[in-house]
C-alpha cells in the first residue's frame, strides 16, 4: 500500500493481496485499490477477462465504495467482503455458471463456489511430470506459510477475533491452494481449498475460531504439513502416500457442523473440559444441517455454509456457557496475545521485503569481509601509518576502519535469524500437552525477536521442544495438585530469550513443583552415578539429571520427570558451545537457563603459544588457568602426570608432546596449565603462555585436510596466519590414547572424534 498509483496498472492478484493486508482505516490505500479495481473492469488493458470475474471485481469495488463513503455499517466487514470477492476473482478457476444469480453480498458466500475444478477420483500428491524447481520453491514457501499460520491459529485461540491472524491463516491456505492446483498437486489443492473455505467463514465473522473450528483449523494445518512432507518424500523418490486421516479431515472441513455434532456426542458423557468446550453460539438460528455436497449447486452450498452450528443435545445444553469458559480459561494472557499478534503480522509483512540468498554465497561474503578486516588491520599496523608522520594518511586509514567495522557487524548479522519460528512451534507443543494431560497451562514467550545464528536454530530446536514438553508434562502439576497447594489452577510455562554479555540466553521456567533434589541424589547414588560419600552442591545435584545413565530410568518421571533424554539436551547445547544451568525451588518451580554464543561462526577463543605455534582454545571450555608449583605436580608410573588443584586431581597433558612441537617449555613450573572442561571431565593442558583472548571466525581446514584429531578447525589470526582451534573433547581422547602407548601421528590422525564439530562450516 505504500505504492503510490504506479503507471503500470496493478494486476488483479496484486490488488487482492494488497487488499488482504489493508486496514479499514487506511483510506488512502483503499481509494487507490478501489481505483485499481475499477481499472481492471473498465480499462481495456484490465486483467478482468471473463464476465464472471468482472462481476466479482465490480462487487468488490462496490464494497470498497461503500466503505470509503462511510455508508457501510461495519468498515471491517465491508473490507473483508471486498477482499474475499477480489480473491475469488483472482482464483484460477472459473466461477460456476449458476452463480450469476447470486446476491454476492449474501452473508456467507463461502468460496466453495470456486471449488475443485479438481479432477474427481483419487487426489494426486505429485503430478506425473512434476516441475521440480517450481515445486521445490513452492514447498519452501508453503512450509513458511504453515509455520506462520500455526502461530496465528494459536493467537486466535486466545483472541478469536484477531482479524490479522485470520488473514494470515487464510493466506496460507489460499496460497497453497492456488499454487498447488497450478502445479497439479490436487491432494494439496483440495485440502487447502476446503480449509480456506472454513477460514473464509471465520474471517467473515460468520463463525468464531474457537472450539471445534479452532481444532479443525489446527488439524488442517497439521494435515497440510504432513501432506507437504509426503510430497517432499515423493519427490525424493520414496513411495509416499496421502497422510493418514486425509479423507476424514477433508470431509470434516467440508462440513464442520457435522463434525461438531460428532465431537459433541463424544464429549457429552464426559463433561467436556473447559478449553475443549463446545463451539460458540450461532449467529443466526440454524436451518437444517445439510451435508455439504462437493461442488454442488450453489444454493445448497450456501445454506449449508450458513448453517452455523450443530445443535446436538449437548451443544444446546452447553449453549452460551463455553464462551464464558473460553474467556476465562486462559486468564491474564491478554497482555501477551496482542503483542504476539502484532509481531506475527509484522513478520508476514517482513517476508515481502526480504531476498533469498544461497547460504554459500552468504558465507563467502562473510569470509571476504573477515579478510577485509584483517587486510585493514595490517594496513593500520603498518609503521608508515603514524599520526606524527602522516596525519592525513592516518585519518584516512581510521575512516576506512570505521567502514570496515560497520561492514563486519552487518555481515555477521546476515546469518542471524529470529527465534520466533522456533518459539511458535513450542507454543503448539504446550497447547497439545496441556490438552492431553488435562491441565491448564499458559505459555508465555518473550524475546522471540532475539536473533541467533541460523545454523544453530535446528540444533537448539530439538532440546527446547524436549524441555518444554517436560516442563508442561511433568513440571507443571495437575490442576488438582495446584489447587491443593494453594496455587493458581493455571500453570505457566515461560520462555524468555535475551542477550546478555555477548551470549544469547534462553530461560525456560515453570511454576510447577520444582525438582526433588533428595530423590535425584538417591536415584543417582542407586544407579552408581555418584559417589555416595561425596557431598554435592545443589547445582551439582541438578546437573545429575543430564547424565546419560540417569535418563533411562522411568520411575524418576514421577519426581518431576525430567529424566528422559536430558543427556541429549545437554549434548546438543554443548555442541553449540553453550551451557545449561538449573535452578529450582521446591513447590515454586524450575528454571533452565541456556546460554549460547551469538553465532557459531565466531568462537570466543584464548590464544595460547606452544613453541612457535599458536593455538586457539574456545573460552567456554576453559575452567581456569594457572602457573603450577612443583608441589602440585606428581607423576604416575613415570608416565602419567597429575596436577592437584584445590584438592582435586586432574590429569595433565602436554600440548607440545601431543602435537610434537619443538622448542616449547618442557618444565611444568615454567609453563602455564589451562584446565579444560568438556562436560565429561576436566584435564590440564600445559602450554607456554597465553597470548590473549580474541573472537575468531571458525573455518574448515579445507577439503584436503579432512578431520584432524583434537582440532575442530582453523581461524585466521590478526596477522593473517592460520591458527588451529582445539577441540577439547577429542583432545582429551587423543591425550588418553597417546598415554595408552599409541603416540604415533597415524594414530593421532585416525583417532577422530565421532561427530563432526558444528563449529566448522564445511
Amino acid at each position, binding site marked *: 500500500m505504500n505504492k503510490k498509483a504506479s503507471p503500470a496498472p496493478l494486476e488483479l492478484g496484486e490488488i487482492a493481496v494488497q487488499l488482504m493486508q489493508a486496514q479499514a482505516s487506511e483510506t488512502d490505500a483503499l481509494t487507490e485499490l478501489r481505483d485499481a479495481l475499477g481499472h481492471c473492469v473498465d480499462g481495456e488493458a484490465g486483467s478482468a477477462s471473463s464476465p464472471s470475474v468482472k462481476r466479482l471485481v465490480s462487487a468488490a469495488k462496490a464494497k470498497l465504495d461503500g466503505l470509503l463513503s462511510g455508508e457501510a455499517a461495519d468498515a471491517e466487514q465491508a473490507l473483508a467482503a471486498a477482499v474475499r470477492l477480489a480473491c475469488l476473482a483472482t482464483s484460477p478457476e472459473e466461477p460456476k455458471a449458476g452463480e450469476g444469480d447470486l446476491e454476492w453480498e449474501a452473508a456467507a458466500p463461502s468460496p466453495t463456489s470456486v471449488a475443485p475444478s479438481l479432477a474427481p477420483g483419487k487426489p494426486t500428491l505429485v503430478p506425473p511430470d512434476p516441475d521440480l524447481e517450481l515445486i521445490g520453491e513452492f514447498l519452501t514457501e508453503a512450509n513458511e506459510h504453515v509455520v506462520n499460520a500455526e502461530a496465528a491459529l494459536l493467537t486466535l485461540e486466545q483472541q478469536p477475533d484477531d482479524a490479522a491472524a485470520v488473514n494470515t491463516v487464510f493466506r496460507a491456505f489460499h496460497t497453497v491452494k492456488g499454487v498447488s492446483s497450478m502445479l497439479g498437486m490436487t491432494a494439496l489443492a483440495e485440502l487447502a481449498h476446503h480449509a480456506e473455505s472454513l477460514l473464509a467463514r471465520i474471517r467473515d465473522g460468520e463463525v468464531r475460531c474457537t472450539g471445534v473450528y479452532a481444532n479443525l483449523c489446527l488439524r488442517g494445518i497439521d494435515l497440510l504439513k504432513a501432506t507437504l512432507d509426503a510430497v517432499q518424500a515423493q519427490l525424493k523418490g520414496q513411495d509416499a502416500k496421502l497422510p493418514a486421516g486425509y479423507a476424514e479431515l477433508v470431509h470434516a472441513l467440508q462440513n464442520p457442523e457435522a463434525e461438531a455434532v460428532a465431537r459433541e456426542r463424544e464429549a457429552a458423557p464426559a463433561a467436556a473440559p473447559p478449553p475443549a468446550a463446545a463451539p460458540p453460539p450461532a449467529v443466526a438460528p440454524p436451518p437444517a444441517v445439510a451435508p455439504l455436497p462437493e461442488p454442488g449447486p450453489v444454493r445448497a452450498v450456501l445454506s449449508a455454509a450458513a448453517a452455523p452450528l450443530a445443535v446436538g443435545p449437548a451443544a444446546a445444553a452447553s449453549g452460551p456457557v463455553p464462551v464464558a469458559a473460553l474467556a476465562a480459561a486462559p486468564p491474564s494472557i491478554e497482555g501477551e496475545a496482542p503483542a504476539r499478534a502484532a509481531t506475527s503480522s509484522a513478520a508476514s509483512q517482513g517476508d515481502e521485503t526480504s531476498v533469498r540468498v544461497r547460504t554459500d554465497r552468504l558465507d563467502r561474503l562473510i569470509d571476504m569481509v573477515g579478510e577485509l578486516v584483517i587486510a585493514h588491520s595490517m594496513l593500520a599496523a603498518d609503521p608508515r601509518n603514524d599520526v606524527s608522520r602522516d596525519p592525513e594518511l592516518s585519518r584516512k586509514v581510521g575512516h576506512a576502519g570505521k567502514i570496515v567495522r560497520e561492514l563486519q557487524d552487518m555481515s555477521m548479522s546476515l546469518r542471524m535469524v529470529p527465534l520466533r519460528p522456533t518459539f511458535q512451534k513450542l507454543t503448539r507443543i504446550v497447547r497439545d500437552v496441556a490438552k492431553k494431560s488435562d491441565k491448564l497451562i499458559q505459555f508465555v514467550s518473550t524475546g522471540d525477536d532475539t536473533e541467533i545464528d541460523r545454523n544453530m536454530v535446528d540444533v537448539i530446536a530439538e532440546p527446547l521442544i524436549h524441555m518444554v514438553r517436560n516442563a508442561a508434562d511433568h513440571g507443571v502439576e495437575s490442576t488438582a495438585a495446584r489447587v491443593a497447594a494453594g496455587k493458581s489452577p493455571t500453570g505457566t510455562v515461560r520462555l524468555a530469550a535475551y542477550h546478555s554479555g555477548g551470549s544469547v540466553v534462553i530461560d525456560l521456567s515453570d511454576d510447577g513443583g520444582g525438582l526433588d533434589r533428595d530423590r535425584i541424589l538417591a536415584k543417582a547414588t542407586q544407579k552408581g552415578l555418584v559417589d555416595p560419600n561425596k557431598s554435592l552442591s545443589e547445582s551439582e545435584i541438578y546437573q545429575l539429571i543430564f547424565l546419560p545413565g540417569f535418563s533411562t530410568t522411568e520411575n524418576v518421571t514421577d519426581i518431576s520427570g525430567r529424566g528422559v533424554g536430558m543427556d541429549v539436551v545437554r549434548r546438543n547445547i554443548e555442541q553449540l558451545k553453550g551451557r545449561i544451568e538449573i535452578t529450582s525451588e521446591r513447590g515454586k518451580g524450575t528454571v533452565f537457563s541456556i546460554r549460547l554464543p551469538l553465532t557459531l561462526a565466531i568462537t570466543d577463543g584464548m590464544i595460547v603459544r606452544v613453541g612457535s605455534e599458536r593455538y586457539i582454545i574456545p573460552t567456554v571450555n576453559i575452567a581456569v588457568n594457572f602457573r603450577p608449583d612443583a608441589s602440585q605436580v606428581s607423576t604416575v608410573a613415570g608416565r602419567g602426570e597429575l596436577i592437584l588443584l584445590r584438592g582435586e586431581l586432574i590429569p595433565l597433558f602436554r600440548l607440545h608432546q601431543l602435537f610434537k*612441537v619443538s622448542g616449547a617449555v618442557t618444565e611444568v613450573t615454567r609453563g602455564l596449565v589451562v584446565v579444560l572442561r568438556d562436560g565429561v571431565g576436566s584435564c590440564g593442558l600445559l602450554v607456554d603462555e597465553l597470548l590473549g583472548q580474541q573472537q575468531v571466525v571458525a573455518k574448515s*581446514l*579445507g577439503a*584436503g585436510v*579432512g578431520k584432524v584429531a583434537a582440532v575442530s578447525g582453523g581461524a585466521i589470526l590478526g596477522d593473517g*596466519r592460520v591458527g588451529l582451534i582445539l577441540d577439547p573433547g577429542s583432545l582429551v581422547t587423543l591425550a588418553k590414547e597417546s598415554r595408552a602407548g599409541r603416540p604415533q601421528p597415524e594414530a593421532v590422525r585416525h583417532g577422530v572424534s565421532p561427530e563432526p564439530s558444528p563449529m566448522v562450516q564445511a
Partner: protein
Amino acid sequence: MSSQLSTLEPGAALSGKYLTFFLGAEEYGIAILKVREIIGIVPVTPVPGTPSFMQGVINLRGKIIPVIDLRAKFGMPTQAASRETCIIVVRRLDLELGIVVDAVSEVRNVAAAETDAMLDLGGEISAEYFLGISKADGKVRLLLDIDRILSTEDVLQLAKR
C-alpha cells in the same frame, strides 16, 4: 587429461600449455588448466597428525587451504624457503590445495611431437605421478599428473570427511 587417454594415443593428449617450475635442478610441468593461481610463499601453519608431505594450512584470502610439499612427496630433501619459493594453487573438483615449489619458470606450449611416455626408472620413483616427459630444446621436463598426485591414497584419505 587422464592417463587412460595418454595410453591410447601416446603424445597427442599431452600437448598443450604447461606451467613449468623447479624442484632443485629438475624442471616439472603442470597442465595450465589445473592451475588456479600462483602466490608467493606465506607462513604455513602445521597441522598435527597429518603425513609429512602435508606441510600445513595457509590463509588464501580468507579461505583455509592445505599445502603439500612436493619435495617431501617425492622423497627429496626439504629445503628452506627462498625468495623464489612459490605456492601453486591447483584445484581438482572441490579440492583446492597449494603445492610448494622451489621456483616457477614459465608457461610453455608443449607439442605432441616433443613428448615421450614416462619411462620406468625403477626403484622408489613412482612413474604413476607423471603423464610423460617433454624433451624440447635438449631439456627434460617432467609433466606431472596432478590429478594422480592429488588422488593417491594419502590425499584421498585426507579428503575423506
